[in-house]
């Protein structure tokens, strides 16, 4: 048996030339900013936050280890249950509505010729509006007596609800507001629709498919990748809803009591308040990890489902 010290390099192992090593050094130099940022602002904080979630920490005094207490408290906290319930309710309404309306608008836009750019702009401009301004605008549009929305409903003989003050109507009002900013989803669908090869429609027509059959058996499968993508992105975003609702109902001692803010409480808003208003940093960290787990599970379920429904045509997505 040859001694390992004198054995030539194992055949499985590629020999690296000095040039390759020099290249690798440069490669890591290019990646260095991201690696440093990842360690300092992602991996490090993740570890710290995981650890903090097992402590009681108010920033002033050093963290105190409390084991699973935060998580136990979390499970029994009615505020957490309420805000999580609201968030799920909002997501369950917001995501399907955004997808359906965006698809409708994209189908309309696809048929527009020269003016397509103009109408695309019309649907996208609300997305450019700063979220705080959207919150302010809809606080007024949803006003019970003088709001534009209830005035419009009155025109068709409907007495509009108290969108901003009736606890049962706060959440539908927020969903309504959220639908104004669906422009990016429209643009994604429009791009997907324009990538569907025309000959598929022609072939389907020749085979006797009507408008609905073409939509069901050509359009939907061909854009299922985009549908799936927007399902995931919109779900993740709406589970983290913060700015518009915080603007409307929180952060102001006067209005926070006056306008039943329990009904408008979202998970991330509650988390933010626990962390930066009540300085329950440990508890808020536990809340953040619960959110992470929820998002992971929801996304995994959606990916699993998509394997059944999404049609991938050798495209390089």
């Amino acid at each position: 048996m040859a001694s390992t010290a004198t054995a030539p390099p194992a055949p499985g192992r590629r020999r690296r030339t000095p040039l390759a090593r020099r290249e690798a050094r440069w490669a890591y130099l290019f990646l260095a900013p991201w690696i440093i940022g990842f360690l300092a602002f992602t991996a490090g904080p993740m570890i710290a936050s995981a650890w903090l979630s097992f402590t009681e920490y108010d920033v002033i005094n050093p963290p105190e280890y409390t084991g699973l207490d935060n998580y136990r408290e979390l499970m029994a906290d009615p505020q957490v249950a309420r805000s999580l319930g609201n968030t799920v309710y909002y997501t369950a309404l917001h995501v399907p509505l955004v997808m359906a309306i965006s698809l409708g608008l994209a189908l309309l836009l696809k048929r527009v010729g020269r003016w397509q750019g103009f109408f695309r702009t019309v649907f996208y401009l609300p997305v450019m509006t700063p979220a705080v301004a959207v919150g302010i605008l809809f606080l007024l549009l949803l006003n019970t007596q003088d709001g534009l929305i209830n005035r419009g409903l009155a025109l068709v003989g409907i007495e509009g609800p108290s969108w901003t003050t009736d606890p049962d109507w706060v959440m539908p009002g927020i969903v309504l507001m959220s639908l104004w900013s669906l422009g990016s989803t429209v643009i994604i669908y429009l791009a997907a629709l324009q990538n569907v090869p025309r000959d598929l429609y022609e072939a389907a027509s020749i085979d006797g498919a009507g408008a609905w059959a073409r939509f069901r058996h050509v359009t939907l499968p061909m854009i299922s990748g985009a549908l799936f993508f927007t399902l995931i992105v919109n779900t993740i975003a709406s589970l983290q809803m913060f700015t518009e609702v915080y603007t409307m109902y929180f952060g102001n001692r006067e209005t926070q009591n006056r306008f039943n803010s329990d009904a408008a409480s979202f998970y991330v808003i509650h988390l933010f308040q626990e962390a930066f208003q009540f300085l329950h940093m440990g508890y808020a960290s536990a809340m953040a990890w619960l959110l992470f787990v929820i998002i992971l599970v929801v996304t995994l379920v959606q990916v699993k489902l998509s394997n059944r429904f999404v049609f991938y045509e050798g495209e390089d997505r």
Partner: protein
Amino acid sequence: MTTAVERTAAAPVPGAGPAPAAARRPPAEDARRPLWQRVAFVAALTGASVIFMLPFVWLVGASLRPREYVFAPGFLPVPFAPGNYTEAWSAAPLLTWLFNSVVVGVAAAAAVTISSAWVAFGFAYFRFPGRDLLFGLVLATMMLPFAVTMIPTYLIWSELRLTDTQVPLWAGNLFGSAFYIFLLRQFLLSLPREYFEAARVDGASYPQLFWKLAFPLIRPALLVAFVFEFKASWTDLMKPLIYLRNEELFTLPRGLKVVLDRFGYGGEQQWEVVLAGSVIATVPMIILFFLAQRHFVEGIATTGRKG
């Protein structure tokens, strides 16, 4: 407007549409449809557009009415009260906040664009052990909710004594961001490798390859990254809420929230000030969109970024 829509709906002009697909459409398609379908199409498109535009129209109209008319029915600025804007201007340091938003936005956008391009070049050009694993890690960070890292990140800036400065609003961007690294890498991979090999043979160093060759070639993608991040920074409320106490340092969204709390419900009920402030915060974004429309649409369509 309606007649123009009708005309284009009836006979799309090939090649005039902004999207290539519009050019491929045979002009006769819509002319073949029955009249009622064409009417329904125009009605649906016009109706939807009006619904999406009305909030803007109301916002601008109401912001130009005297206080007691803000909630009056109608959209027009009657009676006309442009003085609301000078009032808003003196009621709150809007100009300071506007300036802060521009400074923070440019710093955040420039930092993330340059650093992400630098990192993306590393992933696109070099072959080295662990590359695909690392790139997978880059993509994985996109899934992480902001809330998980929010508290320790705050503690870091607080430890560095940089809370209540604007530094935390943009300095995190110096290390690149997963979404833009992904976007710029895609663009870099589409460039012919021979360009770079030729420059190497001519004795260019790697940083020269990046600055002199790659950077100018991916300019359109860099602009996409810049305008997206500028918009994200302009709109952000959470970070200014966490880090800023001093009103002089506020960005516009943070300032606007103060204006709402001070002059809106539970405050002075001077809604005209709140509305004028909202218009002032929104107009720069509308201008940005018209200047960079192509980049926004391209960025969303190719990457599926949520606005």
